[in-house]
């Protein structure tokens, strides 16, 4: 049974499982990896109860590939992993973007690079989420900072992926996935369904309207659609003409760009404060604690990371003289904030970076606000 309205107490990864089921997940394929494993374990138990399919594949490449195959039967699909597995999935993320396959990937970030810190937190996959596969392609990446987010943002990831036919990544991390906390389920949850078509489509399987999103021909419905990772025309068949490729690559990216207002979300506390902290994921709770009772310090929580919410961030930091990015890497979101801050009038951003696997504390944030470095 899907969760009914009420308040629940769960681990972040468990809330993600319930969010996925609430969103209508039908197929999950995954491979064990810390700190995402509870998502696979939870779905192994819960999906069969909901009439869905769970399968443990031989590796992360197979997991995302199976999910892509299942998506073409019209099913809502998901896989979850962490850094090393996320690296293995990159080729297929590009494939899903190229073939416009709706797909949700949860990346529970841990300390990297390589095997890194398997059980401890890191936020080093931000740029990989955007640029990890080759070529120019669109993705949507959301961030989760709390157990409530793990539920809400999982649902939102499905909704956006189904709506825009773009692989959507939920960036959580070891802390957010493993923390336990309360979250509430409202009486009405918005669930988006894929726009499908079931007519013969071999002449125009990828034809699109002004939304730039083609309607989805479902395998087995008589569509006879051809899907390929090669550059293809609106019929779906391989074409290597200059015009066809140019139109395709532009449309795929524009598909996300023109819908930025719908996709991008930031939560701002005290807009207009002279000091604005920008953060996402596990440092968020520390930042919320740090700004309590400090009327001069505001907080920008990024709920969407890619496409980067330029406009929302610019509005939030417009009145600030000091912009501080708090993240658990050597500065990835920082580059984006720096770019936005520069664009709105030469503001400099400062970076509070922490790696090593321990969460940033409120004291560290306050110290950085008041004394810097």
């Amino acid at each position: 049974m899907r969760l009914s309205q009420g308040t629940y107490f769960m681990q972040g990864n468990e809330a993600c499982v319930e969010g996925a089921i609430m969103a209508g997940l039908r197929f999950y394929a995954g491979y064990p990896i810390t700190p995402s494993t509870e998502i696979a374990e939870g779905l192994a138990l819960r999906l069969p109860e909901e009439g869905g399919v769970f399968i443990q594949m031989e590796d992360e490449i197979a997991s995302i590939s199976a999910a892509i195959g299942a998506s073409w039967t019209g099913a809502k699909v998901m896989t979850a992993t962490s850094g090393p597995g996320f690296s293995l999935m990159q080729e297929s993320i590009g494939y899903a973007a190229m073939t416009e396959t709706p797909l949700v990937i949860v990346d529970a970030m841990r300390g990297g690079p390589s095997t890194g810190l398997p059980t401890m937190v890191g936020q080093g996959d931000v740029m990989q989420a955007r640029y990890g596969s080759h070529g120019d392609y669109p993705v949507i990446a959301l961030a989760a900072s709390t157990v409530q987010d793990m539920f809400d943002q999982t649902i939102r990831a499905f909704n956006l992926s189904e709506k825009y036919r773009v692989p959507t990544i939920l960036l959580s991390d070891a802390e957010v996935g493993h923390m336990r906390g309360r979250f509430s389920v409202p009486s009405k949850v918005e669930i988006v369904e894929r726009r499908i078509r079931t007519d013969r489509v071999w002449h125009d399987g990828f034809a699109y309207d002004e939304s730039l999103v083609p309607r989805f021909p479902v395998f087995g419905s008589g569509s006879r659609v051809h899907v390929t990772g090669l550059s293809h025309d609106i019929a779906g068949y391989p074409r290597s003409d200059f015009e066809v490729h140019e139109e395709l690559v532009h449309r795929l990216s524009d598909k996300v760009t023109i819908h930025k207002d719908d996709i991008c979300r930031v939560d701002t506390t005290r807009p207009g404060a002279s000091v604005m902290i920008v953060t996402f994921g596990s440092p968020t709770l520390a930042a919320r604690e740090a700004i309590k009772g400090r009327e001069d310090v505001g907080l920008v929580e990024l709920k969407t990371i890619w496409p980067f919410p330029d406009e929302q961030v610019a509005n939030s930091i417009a009145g600030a003289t000091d912009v501080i990015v708090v993240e658990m890497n050597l500065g990835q979101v920082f580059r984006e904030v720096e770019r936005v801050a520069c664009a709105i009038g030469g503001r400099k951003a400062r970076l509070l970076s922490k790696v090593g696997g321990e969460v940033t504390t409120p004291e560290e944030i306050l110290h950085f606000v008041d004394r810097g470095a």
Partner: protein
Amino acid sequence: MFCPGCGIGTVMNCFYRAFAEVGMNQDKTVFVSGIGCSSRIIGYIRADSIHTTHGRALAVATGIKLANPDLNVVVFSGDGDIGAIGGNHFINAARRNVDISVFCINNFIYGMTGGQASTTTPHKSYSTTTPYGNAEYPFDLSELAVTAGANFVARWTVRNVKELTMSMQKALNKRGFSFVEIASPCPTSFGRRNRMPEPKQMFEWLKIISVKREKSKAWGLDQLDLNIGGQITIGEFVERNRAPFGMIP
């Protein structure tokens, strides 16, 4: 888009006959392929079809079949997809015994990229990446499929069109993982560097080195030998009825 003397056209012809004979519903069949010459077949079939990344056809096919068991799932693949980059998916799909039919066109070479050695290139053969002769020994893909747990495994050359068509029918009808390997000539990329530039010479070669299983059994050998002893054993190697994955009887 296939070269003169290529065996893929023959495989397609045999497959269409088998498919028609079995009477499968074209609208309920999904064709899956990876990357390479053999994988382009599905672009010539008017049916739901997905041309995946290199090596991943079997993983994608697994997802399709499990998400909608009403669909027939057919995979066309080559020795690069099955034996090298997707080798892990191959043995695991056979072990899992997912209900899909796999047709692997083994041309002993990477044809599309211009003739590099593959995992099935015969020992001592020449290719652009084995200019001094192949120092490695080839995989026997059919033997791997048998060992890993497939329900049906057969191997023929493109010369054996009748037997091949019959085995394809069996593979399509079989519940569980079925695997048909087809030894196929590539005069352009393999033959040219191994003193068989003419299609006719490659067909002669296939005739000389292929030995029917019944005959090799009579010699006291029942191995699924692929060129390790200098021969290709052809025939049907296993037919069993383990319950397919996801379909508890």
